[in-house]
């Protein structure tokens, strides 16, 4: 039996619909402004195995309630933007959607993590036609969204490689270099943002 129970079948559909809605937002923005709102969009339903491990680690019972309410990243999306201000534009547009309700935001861009990680994290509740864990239909599901620039995304991939390789000989050195390069990438992101502003001002 899946940790997601009978809700397992709904999750990919909710993911698809949410992504489709965000694509529409992107298209409408592009038609209006002639510029891409984001560079690419990706999404996933957290695997059974991975969700089970996470619940075990947190000492939660292996139930759909744990998987869908206690954890709020069963459905996850990532929006990767060209420029920093596009991220904030995306967030504004997401907030305007009547079936999305943002319940938590964490700005790791203006408040980067100590290791250099930068991204904007938000959790929203989406209205769906499907029944939810509370038995409501139409039901509500949590969706986690990470927004970042291409540079932040590249950095996160590199950091991920280090995190999951356990036999690194000099982890302190690599961490230090990752932190340094994160600050350099942030510098480029901010500089490009500034140049964009200078172009706009003419």
């Amino acid at each position, binding site marked *: 039996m899946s940790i997601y129970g009978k809700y397992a079948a709904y999750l990919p559909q909710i993911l698809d619909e949410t992504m489709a809605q965000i694509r529409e937002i992107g298209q409408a923005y592009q038609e209006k402004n002639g510029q891409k709102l984001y560079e690419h969009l990706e999404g996933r339903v957290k695997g059974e195995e991975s969700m089970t491990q996470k619940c075990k680690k947190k000492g939660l019972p292996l139930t759909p309630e744990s998987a869908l309410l206690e954890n709020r990243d069963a459905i996850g999306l990532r929006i990767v933007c060209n420029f920093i201000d596009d991220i904030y534009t995306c967030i504004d547009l997401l907030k305007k959607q009547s079936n999305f309700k943002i319940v938590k935001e964490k700005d790791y861009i203006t*408040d980067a993590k100590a290791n250099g990680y930068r991204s904007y994290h938000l959790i929203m509740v989406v209205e769906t036609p499907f029944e939810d864990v509370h038995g409501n239909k139409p039901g509500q599901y949590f969706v986690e969204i990470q927004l970042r620039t291409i540079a932040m995304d590249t950095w996160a991939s590199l950091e991920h490689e280090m995190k999951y390789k356990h036999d690194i000989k000099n982890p302190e050195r690599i961490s230090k270099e990752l932190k340094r390069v994160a600050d350099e990438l*942030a*510098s480029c992101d901010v500089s490009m943002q500034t140049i964009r502003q200078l172009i706009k001002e003419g």
Partner: protein
Amino acid sequence: MKILLAEDEAQLNRVVTVAMQKSGYEVDSVFNGQEAVDAVKKHPYDVIIMDIMMPVKNGLEAVKEIRATGDKTYIMMLTAKSEIDDKVTGLDVGADDYLTKPFSLKELLARLRSKERRSEDYNSKQELNYDNLKLDLNSQELSSNNSISLSKQETSLMRYFLLNPGKQLSTRELFNHVWKEEDETEDVVWVYISYLRSKLQSIGAHVKILGEKGGSFSLTRA
């Protein structure tokens, strides 16, 4: 500090060397300009003390040759005459300071201490602070809540603001300070002010650069 002394009078050379060694400096002593040039090619020095009137090669020639190799070591000339021309020539060929003979050991040692202070306390003080803002000149990193890297020119501009907080600095002054030697025009100042403003904001600094394009700018607490 490691010092090279070039002085042809054996007695004086000996006295000065011992006095400097007693003050804790490492001293190499040579007796003419050619030996000085050769020593500089082989060893690193923090200060070179160079007599002008020397056999084989005089001090002025030696300084010229040392500078021609691109060496920037601090050089103090010792001049027997108190003639202005001698001092001017010495400074113009690349010396940084001079002492007129006869000089007092006390004064020489005080000048060395002054030089040491300048290079260690002032120049190698690699960190500037203002409110919650920190600029690390070594790593070219600006930080408050977060940190962010700066380019060479951004670092130089930010450093100038941090050394002169609250003062009105004109576009011209900023340009002359940061870009004087470069093939640039004054409109570069506004671009770099814009970079610094964005970067200050991105790290959550409680510090702002006030001012309008083309005018004067000042660093203040936000």
